């Protein structure tokens, strides 16, 4: 574990240096599916940020009272409770989007990134630092998803947030709204990222 890092450092590590998606390729399961439309991506991101921050905070607050052996179960239940709150909120205020997102909101529970942060950071650190760590990580995560949506929606539908951005004669790339488009976009992004910002200790490759 690194020593007591400053709050800003913790925040920036998650946002940029150890970007969870591009660097660690964690937690892409549930969220990659919704990146074909910008609106869905934004809603999903908001839900994810809320869940990561709050569950990191809670895990950290309870860290002294949680028995070691059942901590995974406790963490999962904490996460699940917050996801249920998010799910009910989205159902109540944005019913159309809730319909489009389908089961993916609930799948935030099994998103490895939340569990990963709880396990790696919140378990050892005070509440405020954990909250900031969660915020940085989830924001970094959201930025990547927004970037993917930024590629997929204009190419796939010719629109962005529902507005037309491509010229009239543009032929839509149907493959971009289907599953392969997401894999290819993320793969190329991870490549570019690793090419320009290679990790120091990862020389053996």
């Amino acid at each position, binding site marked *: 574990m690194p020593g007591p890092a400053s709050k800003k450092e913790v925040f920036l590590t998650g946002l940029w240096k150890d970007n969870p998606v591009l660097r660690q390729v964690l937690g892409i399961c549930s969220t990659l599916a919704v990146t074909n439309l910008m609106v869905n991506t934004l809603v999903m991101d908001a839900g994810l940020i809320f869940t990561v921050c709050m569950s990191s905070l809670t895990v950290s607050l309870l860290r002294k009272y949680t028995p070691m052996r059942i901590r995974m179960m406790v963490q999962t239940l904490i996460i699940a409770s917050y996801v249920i709150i998010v799910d009910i909120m989205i159902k109540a205020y944005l019913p159309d989007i809730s319909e489009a997102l389908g089961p993916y909101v609930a799948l935030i529970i099994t998103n490895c990134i939340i569990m990963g942060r709880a396990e790696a950071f919140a378990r050892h650190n005070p509440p405020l630092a954990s909250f900031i760590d969660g915020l940085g990580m989830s924001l970094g995560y959201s930025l990547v998803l927004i970037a993917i949506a930024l590629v997929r929606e204009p190419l796939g539908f010719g629109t962005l947030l529902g507005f037309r951005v491509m010229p009239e004669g543009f032929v839509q790339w149907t493959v971009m709204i289907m599953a392969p488009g997401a894999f290819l976009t993320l*793969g190329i992004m991870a490549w570019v990222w690793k*090419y320009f910002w290679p990790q120091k200790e990862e020389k053996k490759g």
Partner: protein
Amino acid sequence: MDYINPVTLFFAAVFTNNILLTNFLGLCPFLSMSRQKRSAVGMGAAVVFVMACTTALNNLVHYKVLVPLGLEHFRYIVFIVVIAAFVQLVEMTVERFFPALYFVMGIFLPLITVNCAIFGASLFMVIRKYDFVQSLAYGAGSGLGWMLAIVAISAIREKLEKTAKLPRGLEGPAITLIITGLLALAFLAFSGMIRVQ
């Protein structure tokens, strides 16, 4: 909604609606476990078994317990607990009675609890209103589809590691994602075969 034949559903879950390649579920273990074919086969087999059983089990729990009691909102928590308990139980049984099997499959079992594909299959089962037999077929098919994808990818990666010289930065997750994209593209060719949603 029309009643879908469980056999059709099974094949649809393997090919046209592959849980990994069209629904993006179970990507984390997929990326980390697909380096060697041996471990990919072990993990895949464990997923097939657990997914078939938990999807059917969750179906029973949802329609026999949660719906009559009006507790549908708690289904996320209940499903997770059911999956975790089931995996724990299987692990203990296998360790006690089939040590040889435990040696092959045992280390993968705990990882499965956090596999989003397992949980996702249960959620899809509720949303698409499958009955018990359909859930069993859907769970088994999805598991098999996942296994098919991970074994295929691991074989490609093994080959790639030995023969190919990759450009800087492309090695590791990036190339795996691109290959997965190509595989997903290939699986789109199945989509005319069966139409199920």
